[in-house]
């Protein structure tokens, strides 16, 4: 099979992987080599589904000996199989990079003969790229659960980001749907990576020449909707991963029905809206100072379909509002629906010069369509005061087209903001 035919199979097999981030790593160009990484990340193209393309995202192989129920590549499924040689991946990456098609490589794989054999070949790809070809571009490498910790360590030395997929939100579901994968074989490398990242940071403080370990950090991914966990369980899991494992990102991937296996729920379509809401809630965890327990509770275990999680929170907490835009601190401004990180920063920067009026809000580019129900400027409200949450709810629905059908498109909040 020629490289083009393999590419078709192995990029098609990788297309559902949500993670495309290529930012957060600062790697200098090796003096005789090619490529660097950009702190803010660069999109090189946008595919026909509107998603950013920044990395050559492929599987090394889709020839899997495992049989995870939710996966197209499971051993019992009849699909065409292919595997790249290490050299083919190296050449593709360099050929694409030199023409400025990509920021770098995102390499994952099905489990070939064994986790070690697979991981060994993946590490060979990045080792060749870094040490022989002096490639300085971005590399994201997936860790195959069950491979030796030696290979995990090596992977972290060459890659900018490494990730271990957590796959499903609970151990019970993992056992049911991916019986060959064990919770420990996922959590152990995660913890190892976390420790190595920390100790490399400490060492580099003492000595700038100490080797970096996965400088863009660690991420993971879980499948949403293939198992019965509610959003509250999922968000608490993510919160724990951010806090305890020091993860940079958790990616959520709406389950795409790929088989009629009776262990799986019957879905008419992938739960895209749910995935979208989880990304929004995740965003609140990481950048807005919310906790999972503020967003959801045992009585309210699933995210609102109609409203984004921040608006839903605001409607449940009328006592918090209105917020005075000329006095509120940054953290408080961030809690106002319709005011994001950029707007909050702009408000704080502009009010140093003079008090901000409703017209001033427009000038500095804050969209007040949604925010106006929740703020005052120098004591004046934007809307009639004393509106009940029920009334606000209604007006939001009318004014924003909230009743419109859920977005068909997968959106990554903030990635392209």
């Amino acid at each position, binding site marked *: 099979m020629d*490289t*083009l035919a393999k*590419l*078709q199979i192995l*990029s*098609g097999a*990788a*297309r*559902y992987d949500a993670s495309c981030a290529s930012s957060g790593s600062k790697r200098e*160009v090796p003096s*005789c*080599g*090619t*490529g*660097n990484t*950009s702190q*803010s990340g*660069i*999109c*090189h*193209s*946008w*595919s*026909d*589904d*509107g*998603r*950013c*393309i*920044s990395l*050559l*995202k492929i599987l090394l192989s889709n020839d899997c000996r495992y049989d995870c129920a939710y996966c197209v590549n499971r051993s019992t499924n009849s699909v065409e199989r292919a595997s790249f040689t290490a050299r083919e991946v190296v050449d*593709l990456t360099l*050929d*694409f990079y*030199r*023409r*400025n*098609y990509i920021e770098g490589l995102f390499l994952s794989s099905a489990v070939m003969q064994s986790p070690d054999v697979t991981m060994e070949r993946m590490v060979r790809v990045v080792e060749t790229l870094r040490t022989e070809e*002096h490639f300085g571009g971005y590399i994201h490498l997936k860790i195959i659960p069950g491979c030796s910790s030696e290979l995990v360590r090596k992977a972290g030395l060459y890659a900018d980001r490494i990730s271990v997929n957590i796959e499903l939100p609970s151990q019970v579901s993992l056992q049911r749907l991916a019986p060959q994968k064990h919770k420990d074989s996922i959590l152990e490398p995660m913890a190892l990576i976390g420790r190595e990242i920390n100790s490399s940071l400490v060492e580099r403080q003492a000595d700038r020449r100490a080797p970096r370990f996965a400088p863009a950090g660690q991420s993971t991914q879980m499948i949403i909707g293939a198992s019965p966990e509610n959003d509250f369980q999922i968000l608490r899991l993510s919160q724990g991963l951010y806090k305890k494992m020091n993860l940079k990102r958790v990616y959520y991937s709406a389950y795409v029905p790929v088989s009629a296996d009776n262990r799986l729920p019957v879905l008419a379509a992938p739960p895209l809206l749910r995935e979208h809401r989880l990304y929004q809630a995740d965003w609140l965890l990481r950048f807005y100072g919310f906790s999972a327990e503020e967003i959801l509770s045992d009585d309210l275990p699933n995210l609102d379909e109609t409203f984004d999680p921040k608006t839903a929170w605001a409607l449940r907490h009328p006592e918090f509002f209105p917020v005075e835009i000329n006095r509120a601190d940054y953290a408080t401004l961030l809690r106002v629906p319709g005011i994001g990180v950029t707007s909050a920063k*702009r408000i*704080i*920067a*502009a009010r*140093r*010069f*003079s008090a*901000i009026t409703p017209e*001033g809000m427009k*000038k*500095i*580019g804050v969209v007040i369509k949604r925010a106006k129900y929740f703020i005052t400027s120098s004591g004046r409200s934007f809307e009639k005061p004393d509106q009940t949450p029920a009334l606000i709810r209604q007006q939001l629905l009318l004014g924003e087209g909230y009743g419109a059908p859920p977005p*068909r*498109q*997968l959106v990554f909040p903030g990635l*392209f903001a």
Partner: protein
Amino acid sequence: MLMNRYLYDGTADGLLSAIAWILEEEPDPQQVALVERENTLFEEGFFIGTDVILAESLFFRLRKQTPDAAHTLYSFMLAEKEGMETSLLHYISLAFRYGDKVNGYLTHSAVQEIVAIAKKAGRELHRMKGLLRFEKLRDGAYLAKMEPDHNIIHPLAYHFRTRLRAQHWFLYDVKRRTAARWSNGTLQFGTIEQFTTPPLSDDEKKVQAMWQTFFKTIAIPDRKNARLQKSNMPMKYWKYLTEKQG
């Protein structure tokens, strides 16, 4: 009150030296207008001649006192916008007064205008870092053609000088007929009047076909969204995008 009105020769250096002169001589630059000379007989206003050294020293002083404003000025100049001299003058005088805080003063219309234009130029520069496409030529060098709205060939070339330093390459701005060339560790800029694309290397079409294949397969078929694609990647850039050919 009638504003004092000044004229300059329409060049970038002329603009900066006029601003430097006004900041020095005028007690309140916010009350002053600056426009390009049109050489009509009865043009009103006082002409300020171009002084390259004065222009440079203004930029260096600005960079020292407020790197943010200097960066904004640099990006603004990439936009080659006409008719905004007075706003720029007011912006720079505010920048010297407020330092790096100035870009937050978006309720001031001069600040808002200048920052908006600079942002737009900066956005295209960032976008182009991703959208530029090189083709390999028969002699082993790489060539990228483009038609950006802003005059960004300089900062773009600096970006690729670091990123693709191991290969020999050219950038060519088709609209402005300007080119950048990187070879053997030196970067040069120039203009090209007559341009003919040299022959491509033998394996070039093969690599392009791989990229086109990847581009097609990586999209999720059930989630086609041409509108989102076009808003992220406006069609005016498609002409030189390898994945949008063939």
